[in-house]
């Protein structure tokens, strides 16, 4: 009995197949095949139940000329920009949190709580917060002496930004958690050495800590941008993309086309564009933020 026997047992093809196949089949059938089919359905004129008619690239051409699609794409990109910018705030909070603050562990868990709630609960809660006459926000604003506070979700010029607030609120704790963990991973000796050399806390943060967690920061940028581009839940529940398309994003527009207007062909085309845009943007961010050498410590 030796290595040979061991290798033989551990490379038994039947066992490997038996162990991998259930997971592989599920993910192939329910994740990858549908993704490919989305692109294919995008070539069809189809109401979801009846006959499919092949119409070539017509849906994709229509999409490129569809102002509603471009508006929704712009809103998605705006969310991506806001999410990415907000990372700076989370980074600052994490820097404070990781600098020997008592109760840091408890605080980062408190920050995480919104992320544990369902989108429907968050949406319903913030609908109430934004309620023009009885909501928490306007109650506070009126108490502070603001006359005629806005009707947040009903105002086409404000609604998109109002809805960004709960979206950012939901994920803030997630990013703080990640930055905090990365910062805590920096060896204390490096910080100590810099301190002995007379570096100020700000210098240490900016010149030592940030470069050392650059890899993590890049990952969070990708997560924030991709997560924003495909964002759906709160927008669908809170406003349904309204009023008058003012808060429509790509995913909500796609969903509406397919399941409200029964235009499955066109909806699929938008869904496929969403996939392609997400992939392209991911590659671009990776390229732009790629450095020649990763910092090692």
């Amino acid at each position, binding site marked *: 009995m030796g290595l040979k026997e061991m290798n033989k047992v551990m490379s038994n093809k039947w066992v490997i197949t038996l162990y991998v196949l259930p997971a592989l089949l599920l993910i192939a059938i329910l994740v990858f095949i549908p993704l490919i089919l989305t692109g294919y359905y995008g070539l069809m004129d189809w109401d979801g139940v009846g006959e499919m008619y092949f119409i070539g690239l017509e849906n994709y051409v229509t999409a490129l000329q569809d102002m509603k699609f471009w508006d929704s794409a712009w809103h998605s990109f705006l969310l991506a920009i806001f999410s990415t910018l907000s990372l700076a705030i989370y980074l600052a909070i994490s820097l404070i949190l990781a600098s020997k603050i008592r109760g840091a562990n408890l605080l980062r868990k408190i920050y995480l709580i919104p992320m544990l709630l369902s989108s429907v609960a968050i949406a319903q809660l*913030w609908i*109430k917060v934004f309620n023009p006459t009885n909501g*928490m926000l306007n109650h506070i604003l009126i108490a502070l002496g603001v006359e005629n506070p806005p009707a947040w979700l009903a105002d086409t010029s404000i609604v998109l930004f109002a809805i960004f607030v709960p979206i950012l609120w939901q994920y803030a704790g997630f990013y703080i958690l990640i930055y905090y963990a990365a910062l805590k991973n920096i060896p204390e000796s490096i910080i100590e050495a810099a301190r002995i050399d007379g570096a100020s806390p700000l210098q240490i943060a900016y010149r030592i800590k940030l470069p050392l967690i650059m890899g993590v920061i890049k990952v969070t940028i990708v997560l924030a941008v991709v997560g924003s581009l495909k964002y759906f839940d709160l927008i669908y529940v809170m406003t349904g993309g309204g009023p008058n398309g003012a808060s429509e994003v790509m995913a909500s527009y796609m969903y509406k086309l397919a399941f409200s207007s029964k235009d499955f062909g066109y909806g699929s085309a938008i869904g496929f564009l969403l996939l392609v845009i997400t992939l392209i943007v991911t590659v671009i961010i990776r390229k732009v933020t790629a450095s020649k050498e990763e910092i090692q410590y």
Partner: protein
Amino acid sequence: MKRIGYFVLYICLGGVALFQVFPIIWLFLFSLKDNREIFSGSPFALPSEFRWENYVKVWEGGIGTYFWNSIWITSVAIIITVLFASMATFAITRMKWKLSKPVLGLFMVGLMIPIHSAIIPLFSMFLNINLIDNPWSIVITYTAYNLPITIMILLGFYYTLPREIEEAAIIDGCSINRMFFKIILPMTAPVLSTTVIINMIYNWNEFVFVNTFISSDAYKTLTVGIQNFIGQYMTDWGAIGATLIISVLPILLAFLFFSNKVVEGISASAVKG
């Protein structure tokens, strides 16, 4: 000087904490009030009397069915996901075969897929095999979409298991199945519990799939159920608040008891991105 600095920092951190939890506290407060008190009183005020009848009212109004559906769909999906993911991770990390790296890569790609891009074909697929408005469509979809993150969390643990365990088992004449189910799987209990709680949060909170595939009230889970349910209490804020609190309570309780596991699991989801 230094003390003042720390004081300012604590104020900042406390302010953020308040911003994160205050809306939820406000929700809990108004779930115990009646409309008159919510609309005229301060949002920060405690209820003049705790109106638990709001909770009784919505529970008797039929929210129980949704609650039960959420529990069984979440649980069954967790069991299948964790079992399949463990088996696949075992084969990928411990067994010797040429395609193990590409197959792992395939699962990891699954982490970045925008689910909405797949939902139209999924819908028509389920329509064709008569799984629309059938809770099993939800169970298998949850399983498939949670496999990547579950495998990702399991990976690190499986890589660190010592080879000697398998050697000893094989020398003792143990079959691979016995080795996996009786020795390896029990050893992974600490990381399994992390995957269970992460799956629980995802499944319990999921909205789009249920909203798309399920139309009968009898099969709806809490997220979609309360979305319609709230409609009938349009102006009764206390009832809406009570409904929302009931829907988030199981997850908040799980977090209270297993916060370290939650933190661990959520961190793992960002390691590779």
